[in-house]
């Protein structure tokens, strides 16, 4: 087995890789195309994140963060491209948009802006939910058939229309339930 040792102490097969694949991650990804089977599998499960299965990052015991951001409510799409899909709402601001990095990411509806189409905010002190339309959004957002132009409080089972989709709002936290803070 003829192997080459790179200056960083990594061993690799010089016939397979032009340069050390372990020093330069980009080279490794490019070289995987020579094995088509593997590259296909990668593209399928390419959800990049720094969290593990439970949504928890690798943390030390004394880290204050919980690692899990508790859910406080949901939006469920009842009409539109993603009909049937649910979206988690977490504490404080949740930005809604078509882009993948948005908290509430709605795929496929082109009438929803890429970024900050609207914001749903959960106030843990007053335990209420408010929807705030995005400043640069051209489309009008309707809550229970009424157009809203400023921050509006949400009630359970409200129907929110954004773009060409309709969502129903289901809160978890509020009068009946709240997450206790671990000290």
């Amino acid at each position, binding site marked *: 087995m003829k192997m080459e040792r790179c200056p960083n102490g990594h*061993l690799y097969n010089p016939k397979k890789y032009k340069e050390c694949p372990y020093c330069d991650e980009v080279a490794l990804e490019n070289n995987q195309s020579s094995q088509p089977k593997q590259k296909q599998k990668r593209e*399928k499960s390419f959800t*990049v*994140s720094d969290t593990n*299965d439970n949504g928890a990052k*690798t943390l030390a015991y004394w880290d204050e963060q919980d690692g899990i951001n508790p859910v406080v409510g949901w939006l469920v799409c009842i009409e539109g491209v993603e009909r049937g899909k649910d979206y988690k709402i977490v504490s404080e601001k949740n930005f809604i948009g078509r882009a993948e990095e948005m908290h509430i990411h709605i795929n496929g509806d082109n009438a929803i802006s890429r970024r900050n189409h609207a914001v749903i905010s959960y106030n843990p002190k007053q335990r209420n939910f408010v929807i705030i339309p995005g400043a640069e959004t051209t489309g009008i957002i309707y809550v229970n058939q009424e157009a809203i132009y400023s921050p509006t409080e949400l009630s359970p089972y409200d129907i929110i229309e954004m773009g060409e989709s309709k969502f129903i709002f289901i809160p978890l936290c509020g009068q009946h339930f709240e997450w206790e803070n671990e000290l």
Partner: protein
Amino acid sequence: MLFKSLFKLFYMLFTNTTLVIVRFFVGSYVKKAEILIGNAQDIGSRRNQEDSFSTIKNENGILAVLADGMGGLSSGKKASNLVTETFLQEFSQMYNIKSINKFLINTTYISNSKVLEVAQGKNLGTTLVAAVIKDNILYWISVGDSHIYLYRDNELHLLNEDHIYANRLKKAYKAGEISRQEAFNHVKRDRLTSYLGYEDFHEIDYSVAPIELQKKDKIILCSDGIYKNLTRIDLEVALAKKVHPMKTAELVLENVLAKEIINQDNATIIALEKNK
């Protein structure tokens, strides 16, 4: 004319066969006890590769070091790279290390100070597992939850103990301090209780009794991206194959990736084998 060419032919045959015989004998004599090395790594589904690893061979012996960085953004990589480089530097600079255990422990403390310097208050950390093989004896050190295994006679032995909260919970349960439910369902059980980059760190696991290696022994260093998704059996089956450690490392990594775990962590493995 004919006689000359025949003579030439026999002459060639004669010299060639003697050369082959000589090469065979010299070859089998020159092949002394040797440690073969292999490595493999994958980024998994993470944004960055935060594991760092390296191996080096010199008059002191062989050093293999693996560090699994943590701390969000790219700071995990900074920490793990720093630790790996520190070990390489110290190993290369020392001439004739007398106590390898002491060397490993000292270098661990030096690495920790360096990580703390770079961190400057930010949350930076890395696990560490390092092994030195000198004169057929294996010395190792571990902080955190990366693993070092000895594979001998078709049996896999985990040499180090994870520095995770789950172990403290187990001890508390055995001592009767908490209930079984508490011990097994504690939210923070997978959290690290010792790692480099923590000022008060003192939990280190090392080879109190160094191990004398036998022929065909295999040593595996790996990060949790490898062992969390493979059963002991999976690992043993891969290690049972009589191939070069480079192929062994690649095979184990293939097995991990074949499981297609969502949110697969960075996976790194170093394989060492004593072949003669």
